């Protein structure tokens, strides 16, 4: 953008005032772009700060005890880890086959007209707020499905929450996978048909492997979303206030995210300062937040790399 002197002495750099205004506009836009960096910094700083004071104040032996009861000074992290693992595992066990199946059908089998109608409906499903799915898991999946398998289970279980989260992430798996499958060049399919392969063989043995990094990316990103999903677990898994350590999906439980909501919405709304148990509970929120932030960021980073590999391939 610097003014280049033209031989012959003609100045093409233009009006000075106009140039100065340009520079200002550029600075304003740059400041806007910096705001996102500031936000990331604020997130990391606020999480690390409080998490550090939590770790230095808490009796470290309570981090590995029999349950998560922040108001009673019992901060058993493995309760929440295992809870999150169970819910995410159940969710992915549901969302992966259903999402991949729907994606293969939409991309390989559906007629263009049908696809034009079905894809937006899938996107509507993706736009349903999580509180709505949470309510569905609490009122329908819990009593009508989980309790019909195991009549002794309570209404709110880890299984009900896992199914709810699974429903929530199906559209994510389906739409990313569908994009990846459609990005596979048509020539690959034609070559396969030319060899005499059937449609099912072509879809499974040619198109699917060619799109595998997109498929893996969709599963990883969906797992990250399932791990971070809060309201479904807070409402449908029970365990408000705290939870015993459990590995049984048919019992009430707590995940990293739901534990944060349980601490935040207690009758004595936690706040900074004040000291004692309430202060520790408040700080434990940020400790959990930091763990969650690191896990999801790691998953997203891996997922992102897989997505890029698709883009590079074709």
């Amino acid at each position, binding site marked *: 953008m610097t003014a280049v002197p033209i031989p012959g002495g003609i100045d093409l750099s233009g009006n000075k005032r106009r140039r100065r205004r340009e520079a200002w506009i*550029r600075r304003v*836009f740059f400041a806007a772009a910096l705001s996102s960096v500031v936000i990331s910094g604020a*997130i990391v700083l*606020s999480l690390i700060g409080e998490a550090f004071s939590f770790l230095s104040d808490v009796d470290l032996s309570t981090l590995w005890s029999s349950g998560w009861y922040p108001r009673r000074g019992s901060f058993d992290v493995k309760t929440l880890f295992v809870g999150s693992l169970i819910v995410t595992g159940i969710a992915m066990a549901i969302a992966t086959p259903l999402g991949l199946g729907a994606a293969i059908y939409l991309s390989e089998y559906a007629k263009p007209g049908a696809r034009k109608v079905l894809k937006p409906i899938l996107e*509507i*499903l993706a736009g349903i*707020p999580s509180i709505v799915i949470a*309510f569905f898991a609490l009122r329908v999946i819990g009593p009508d499905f989980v309790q019909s398998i195991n009549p002794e289970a309570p209404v709110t279980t880890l299984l009900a929450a896992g199914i709810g989260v699974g429903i929530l992430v199906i559209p994510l798996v389906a739409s990313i996978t569908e994009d990846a499958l459609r990005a596979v060049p048509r020539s690959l399919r034609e070559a396969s*048909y030319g060899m005499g392969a059937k449609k099912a063989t072509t879809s499974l043995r040619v198109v699917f492997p060619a799109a595998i990094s997109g498929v893996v990316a969709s599963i990883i990103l969906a797992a990250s979303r399932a791990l971070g999903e809060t309201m479904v677990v807070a*409402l449908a898994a029970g365990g408000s206030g705290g939870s015993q350590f459990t590995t049984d999906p048919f019992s009430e439980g707590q995940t990293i995210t739901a534990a944060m909501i349980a601490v935040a919405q207690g009758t004595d709304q936690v706040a900074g300062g004040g000291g004692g148990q309430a202060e520790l509970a408040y700080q434990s929120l940020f400790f959990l937040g930091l763990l969650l932030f690191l896990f999801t960021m790691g998953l997203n980073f891996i997922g992102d790399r897989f997505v890029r590999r698709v883009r590079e391939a074709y």
Partner: protein
Amino acid sequence: MTAVTTPLPSTSLGRRHLDYWGLAFQAALVFCLVACFGLLLILVGGLIGDGWVVFDERGADFLRSNLSTRPAQAGVAQAIKGSLMLAGFVVVIAFPLGVATAVYLEEYAPDTRVTRFIALNIRNLAGVPSVVYGLLGLAVFVELLGTDMNENGGITGGRSLLAGGMTLAILVLPIVIITAAESIRAVPQSLREGGYGLGATRSEVVRTLVMPNAAPGILTGTVLSLSRALGETAPLILTGAVLSTFFTTPNYSFGDQIRGDYTALPVVIYTWARQAKLEFKGELASAAILVLLAITLLCNAAAVLLRNRYDKDR
């Protein structure tokens, strides 16, 4: 890719026999798709069945009444008002900031390390779970900016509409940036070159050529992020949306209102779903969900209509 449209043979060219395996595979795919849409139908059908009773008995009274502990009088007027005001914050804060960032990244930014860092940072922010944004809001807007020496609530007033609105605005900012950047990137390079050829400065090219062409895409993205913000629950619970006497003193100034207590539709649904009274956790919660779904679907429909209208003009 578009030129070749010959229908591909769906059966093998060899001996004609029924391909049982292929048929079973296709049936499994159809099952996956039907399961996805069946879940949607059960969900919405159940909600309408439960929630319609309320509208049938009370009509618009449910929308005009304030919160109440008596089921026959409870309504969502304050919640709707709260949700709309939160959406206002998203429009005022996240949209200008997000679009400006996208313009910088696509039109101004040189391809340097700083730029790549900002872009990576935004992609990471988009994957951060919403509870973590709630923690940011709790730490910065509620605690840091919400308390001061004189005990009168600092800048944001603690657990206030302002704190919740700013948290939601930050939450959707990465989505706004990414969708806006995508539609700016889709504007043909030749348009820009034409503008520069006529002697326009960068900001003039952006204002008169790039933005009008990218507007439909940007608008669609922003409206979709608005509907995402309207459905978020967890960050609001963390930043202290409570069921309270919100907006019942009409002589409050606007400044006092946004620095005061508030509630929003998703929070009301969450609270009602956890009530012991059957009326609350059944019909009333379903009716509130119907209101929330209606608002978010209206947003999405508006986005699609706007996009189509702009597309026709071109």
